[in-house]
């Protein structure tokens, strides 16, 4: 009989595809890709049992650069596709990824309902406060006075969306913020998020060096691990009241019933058909 070979543990490289990213050099999304693959390696998730699902945008290109299953779906609908996959195949590890435009603008409604629904999956949003892929328009997280977009030359005049506070209000059971400039810290956050039972949301500040070059300064501003959250919603909310958006860490974690319909066969088709008989 053949000896069963001791399987070598998978490294983050095993979770990368050999496909070269199309991103601009210096884009924060490279580090997020590294963080996701590191988290997968840390948890030793079998590649065939994992899927990364995204919408459309620079950040949404992530699935192709991993070597697990994936769906590169349509703009804004990553959470919907990921939800369907996880509910239909509860044993899989499902990660949804994308950008702030994809997730909070066109996909905003799905974000709210994914937080409420609490399906056991992880959502990683690469927030660069801009639409990178369509060449630099304001996104829901863009500051109201940013005049860099041809579409809103006088700024948006609209107060930005606060992803963390909206996630909390909508009922997310795990909320965290990371920074692309800290791939190890982000990997740890993502791994913790994946281990959380329920919907986990990780916002990762991920600079767009091309359309928001000033974001290269973020590495000087971000304060690692400085979020003081925890298990109290009041504490998490109060932290956000004075938050400048540049502290990282886990803001909130709680246990809520996970949306997981029981799926076991109780009856055959014939029994159902009999109900049509008079």
């Amino acid at each position, binding site marked *: 009989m053949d000896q069963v070979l001791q399987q070598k543990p998978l490294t983050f490289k095993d979770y990368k595809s050999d496909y070269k990213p199309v991103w601009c050099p210096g884009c924060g999304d490279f580090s997020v890709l590294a963080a996701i693959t590191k988290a997968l390696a840390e948890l030793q998730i079998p590649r065939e049992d994992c899927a990364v699902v995204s919408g459309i945008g620079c950040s949404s290109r992530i699935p192709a650069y991993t070597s697990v299953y994936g*769906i*590169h779906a349509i703009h804004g*609908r990553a959470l919907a596709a990921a939800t369907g996959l996880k509910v239909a195949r509860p044993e899989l590890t499902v990660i949804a990824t994308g950008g702030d435009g994809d997730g909070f603008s066109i996909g905003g409604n799905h974000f709210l309902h994914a937080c409420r629904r609490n399906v056991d999956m992880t959502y990683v949003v690469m927030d660069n406060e801009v639409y990178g892929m369509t060449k630099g328009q304001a996104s829901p997280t863009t500051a109201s006075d940013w005049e860099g977009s041809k579409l809103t030359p006088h700024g948006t005049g609209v107060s930005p969306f606060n992803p963390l506070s909206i996630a909390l209000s909508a009922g997310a059971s795990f909320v965290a913020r990371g920074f692309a400039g800290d791939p190890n810290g982000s990997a740890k956050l993502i791994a913790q998020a994946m281990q959380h039972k329920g919907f986990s949301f990780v916002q990762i500040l991920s600079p767009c060096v091309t359309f928001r070059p000033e974001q290269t300064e973020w590495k000087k501003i971000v304060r690692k691990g400085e979020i003081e959250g925890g298990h109290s919603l009041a504490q998490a909310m109060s932290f956000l009241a004075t938050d400048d958006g540049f502290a990282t860490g886990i803001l909130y974690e709680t246990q809520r019933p996970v949306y997981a319909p029981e799926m076991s066969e109780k009856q055959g088709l014939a029994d*159902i*058909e009999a109900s049509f008989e008079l």
Partner: protein
Amino acid sequence: MTSKTVSIAITGAGGAGVMTAGQMLLDAAAKAGLYGLMTRSSGPQIRGGEAAAFIRLSSDPIDCPDDYFDVLFCFDWMNVDRFAAELPLRTDSVIIGDEAAKNPPEMITASVARQVMVPLSEAAKEIEGGRPNMIGLGMLGELAGVPLDALQAILEKVLKRKGQAALDASIAGVEKGMQVATDLESKIGIDLHLERKENQQTRWSLTGNEAAGMGALRGGVRFCAAYPITPATEVLEWLAPNLEKVGGTLVQAEDELASVNMIIGGSFGGVPSITATAGPGLALMTEALGLAVSAEIPIVVIDVMRGGPSTGIPTKSEQSDLNIALHGLHGDAPHIVTAAQSISDCLFTTQWTVHLAEALQTAGIVLSDQSLGQSRNIIDKPADLAFVAKREVVEAGVEDYKRYALSDSGVSPMAIPGTPGGEYVADGLETAENARPSSSAEDHYAQLDKRQRKLSQFDYGQHWAEIEGEGELAVVTFGSVTAPVREAIQRLESEGQKIKMISMRLLSPALPDKMDEALVGVKKLLVVEQTHSKQFYRYLRSEFDLPKDTTVLAKPGPLPFRPGEIVNTLKELG
């Protein structure tokens, strides 16, 4: 149908028990060995208000309304005018009203039909706990020849939970009603009794929406995500508990964008998945349908059509989603569009479409409509069909897996998550064979060809259309219009005219060779459809060679096609 049928309309105020009486009459008729169809109509209110049940009973299977009603039974006159256009009557029709209900409205007094007033409320009062609708049920049962034991059996079934006293009162009411009707029959000399053929096959009573749900289950669907919309909601209400029984699940999504994308996720996971919606929802789903086509993820959307555009007439039928179903997707996105031809065919067509979508790894749209979805029919139990989801998948350990391999059939085996070695990314971007995004002309041509080829080459067998009869004159139609067309042709046949019927079940991909074959020998063609802008005719002209002498009978909703108007048009054509 050339056999005798009886058409009965029941109207009354909310709470009068119109629908209950109608449904009980239908079910009792089925118990007694008859066939029947019941459609419902109500005013614009959500609940309560006036309502009408339209019932047609027959000795043989029946699946469309007749030209006229034989009986209009009014528990009261509450807004009965509102149904005027839906209530064609003729001189030998009978309007039955309650003596106690004062002042019949214009619509009744001006009617050509005979009018008789009977003591409904009176009779009900004589029975402790008696209700006029049970008197009415007894009367209608007697008139159509539905015997007491059948009515009693249904009452027992329905009123089981209400206790013995309620049941006794209802049975007494029904008996009383039968007696009133017997007097009436001799008084005004009508005989609407239907012949009952004993000891036939097991019968089912179901709506088109339930039938579609059952078709999905039979086809192997185990996941559904959906957002409610009239008149598709009952598909979902039926599926939710029944999916659970067979180990599947239904998610109520936040909108149609979510529901269609959720089923894309579920199906990517290897679980045959479906959703149901109506026009506005289908419009929202078109972008995702394109993803399913491009990424070759099988999904099925049941579109229960209603009056459009926009919110239109949401509670009434029309076939005007045809254009968006055929052409709504962006890019060149070949997909399956089928149409159910009757309430029972909602089952077959849905099951078949699940099978096609799975076999061809593409999106399928099943067109049903309000008149099929929300009407109830008595049918013979459908045969078990072999069509189930059978997706070509790869086994574990494939080497150098090419998800979008350019196979001869155009179908490339799919790797289901959980399969080692098959890891790939399903993409809405154009891809090379290995699933890598590609914007090369070569890959785009090859994949466009492949996605078209797999649909064009597939052997759809004889199910693409129902072809009946022979003749130089033919009618082409689809969907719920099939039944009145069939009946019109049968009526003319009994007068010696020969007419061919081609009712298309597979609308897309178009199979011009099959149509050519079906049209051999046909010199004159009539196209019948329930749209205003002749959507079906325009589609036929764009895809098929039609005889020079082709006429269109297009009529939008909300009034149903009645066989007589099709007979008239066919007579004009000669």
